[in-house]
């Protein structure tokens, strides 16, 4: 187990450098960011040159990348164009997005898995068909449509929620955005759980458990569900990273100033410091989530061993 973790951690290093380098190159390919700073007029050449050297943009890209990575290990993520430290931006953006992600994951786990279990146990019945159609609709409708629709109905027409959240939103303000963010993944979780449950429902160990006379509840939760959760956990694990980075649409609709907002702003202004900094953290989150998922397998299914 210990050796497995160490090996996995070592594997993360090339992945980490590779992804950050890719992002760095991509942002740099987009051209000269200083040109956009002066609006619809040209920056005066002297100021532009000085800004370029201040942000290190006058050096070759490989040198910029090395300096950037060097600074990164001392905890210096650079400065955004509006003069704020990127770490400062992160300190405000990440807590908000983490809150939003937790809300979304809770929705996925609670609603997704319950619906999956219910439908998996009653395959072909009306409940199953209804939920299947519903998940199909949710998957087919883009997030921004669901988001705008809920915002219009709940926020403007019925006045149940505020259409935009406050600058430091509480959990209850994030419930509707969280539901919107979770919606598509929630539908997948439902479907994954349903299939997995339906498959395992006829497995030998379930029959044995029933034959032993265990209560149905114990059979379903301890035996059937536990074994059926492996694909679901894998999906939810990778989804953590996807939700944090992919919240751009939801965050825009509900005016949430989280990671998605900062990334959007960073890309629009071609601020490589912001974009690379945030993506670096997201890459780490993604890698960590994947490791945790892999380790969880053993908890769910003791037959899985790590060499």
């Amino acid at each position, binding site marked *: 187990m210990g050796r497995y973790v160490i090996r996995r951690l070592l594997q993360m290093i090339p992945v980490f450098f590779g992804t950050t380098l890719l992002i760095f190159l991509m942002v740099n390919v987009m051209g000269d960011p200083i040109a956009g700073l002066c609006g619809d007029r040209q920056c005066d050449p002297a100021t532009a040159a000085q800004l370029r050297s201040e942000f290190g943009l006058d050096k070759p890209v490989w040198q910029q990348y090395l300096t950037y990575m060097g600074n990164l290990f001392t905890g210096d993520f650079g400065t955004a164009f509006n003069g704020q430290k990127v770490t400062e931006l992160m300190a405000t953006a990440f807590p908000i997005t983490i809150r939003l992600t937790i809300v979304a994951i809770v929705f996925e786990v609670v609603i997704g898995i*319950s619906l999956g279990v219910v439908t998996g146990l009653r395959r072909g019945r009306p409940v199953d068909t209804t939920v299947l159609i519903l998940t199909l609709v949710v998957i087919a409708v883009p997030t921004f449509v669901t988001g705008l629709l809920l915002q219009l109905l709940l926020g403007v027409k019925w006045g149940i929620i505020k259409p935009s959240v406050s600058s430091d939103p509480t959990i209850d303000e994030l419930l509707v955005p969280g539901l919107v963010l979770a919606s598509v993944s929630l539908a997948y979780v439902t479907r994954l759980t349903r299939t997995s449950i339906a498959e395992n429902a006829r497995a030998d160990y379930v029959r044995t458990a029933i034959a032993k006379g265990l209560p149905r509840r114990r059979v379903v939760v301890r035996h059937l569900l536990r074994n059926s959760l492996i694909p679901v956990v894998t999906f939810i694990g990778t989804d953590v990273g996807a939700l944090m980075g992919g919240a751009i649409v939801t965050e825009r609709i509900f005016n949430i100033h989280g990671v998605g907002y900062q990334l959007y702003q960073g890309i629009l202004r071609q601020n490589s410091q912001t974009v690379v900094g945030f993506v670096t953290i997201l890459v780490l989150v993604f890698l960590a989530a994947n490791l945790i998922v892999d380790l969880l397998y053993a908890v769910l299914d003791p037959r899985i061993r790590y060499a």
Partner: protein
Amino acid sequence: MRGATQARWAACAVAVALAATACGGGGDDSGGSGADGIVSSSWGDPQNPLEPANTNEVQGGKVLDMVFRGLIRYDPKTGEAQNMLAESIDSDDAQNFTVKIKDGWTFSNGEKVTAKSFVDAWNYGAALKNNQKNAYFFQYIDGYDKVHPESGSASAETLSGLKVVDDLTFTAKLSQKFSLWPDTLGYAAFAPLPKAFYDDHDAWLSKPIGNGPYTVQSYAKGSSMNLRRWDDYPGDDKAKNGGVDLKVFTDNNTAYTSLTSGNLDLVDDVPASQLRNVEQDLGDRYINTPAGIIQTLAFPFYDKKWDTDDARKVRQGLSMAINRPQITDQIFQKTRTPATDWTSPVLGEDGGFKKGLCGKECTYNKAEAKKLIDEGGGIPGGQLKISYNADTGSHKEWVDAVCNSINNVMGNNQACVGGAIGTFADFRSQVSTQKLTGPWRAGWQMDYPLIQNFLQPLYYANASSNDGKWTNKDFDGLVDKANAETDKAKAITTFQDAEKVLVEQMPAIPLWYQNGSAGYSDRIENVELNPFSVPVYTEITVK
């Protein structure tokens, strides 16, 4: 039946979730009413640090206008330059100015506003080492080339043209004659700065201190700023409300939705997609008034193809091939006005705006347009590619419409196409490094309501925003003459003479004047936009 129980439980969870949100929503009280009422208003994240000489876009400028007052202030209704802190700005020769400041003005931290507050602030703004993006506003002052050389390092710390005479007087020597110079001093870059700005710059940036009608109560960068009325403000334009809460919106659609649901009082940019419903949603609480913004198509004169006498005819022909009224009506829902000169209606007749100055060259005329373009040998390169940035401002729609109009005239579906460029920064960098070989969308938002500001920075040889590198001796001569003119009315007519050169040469095709659009809730009254399309916050009253 256990499955059913679980389903019920799940349904309950959703119900609880929604109920909990309900508890959270709607509990927003924006603090009081009447004279102490607080106005909540939409805002965009300022692109640069909030310093007077470093802010060059509307969102940051909005705050500076609330927190600062300079020597001159532009009348919010007419745009006319009026003395604010200035007692007088005199000159005999349009080059050496004496500025006297009114007594009794202080910053909100109690520090007195003196001649030194201005001179130090201007020196700070001009100095190369401070990276101020508006530094070029000080370029007319003598010694600018020393503190801010085009390349290399500065050879002086301060502008030699500025001298403090006594507490309330200073002199400014310009490097050239410029009679309208005092009228430019209302721009935010010329604001005075308190000692606190230099003593603890970071602290000042996180909570700016100025001398305007509002003080900054709190500022959460990137999300909100709360401004409160400064009760000891000595000016005569005291705020008529308790304060303004600016809230950053990433998407102006969300801001608009918040307005219609009663969670926001003021939106100063109605999104294009809502223009169809706005009258129905807001009725007379929708404002659509001219702003000092003109949109044009600029051409690359650094490319030899465009810098010929034949190409001049082609440009005139293209201008006549664009059906401006149709595009402003159908695509912009009348939030733009077809342009008939190169300035803006906000200048007024006295300020130099002349309706129809461009004449038939800016009027849609299919036959004449085709004739001129053919006479000029057709579109250089065979195809017109109009470049624009695709990330903001929904430029694609109107560029396509303009092309459509031109293609109609030419009887060729491929005569004109749009050329999208991903981001604004990339677009600007291609424009400023002379990479484009066809026309591009150009927009100009005035810095101050002066005809000079619409002509000189854009069309004078090597001027700061002359991106197409157009040069014309006649035009330059007339601008120089106008600047040297000590009589204001004469200066303006001379500028209009220079503008007539633009009709003949068509260095840029004027398209339309942009309006400012805003909407407000029924909680507030007396909302107006100034010529810069920024709400006049001090005049807003809360019911």
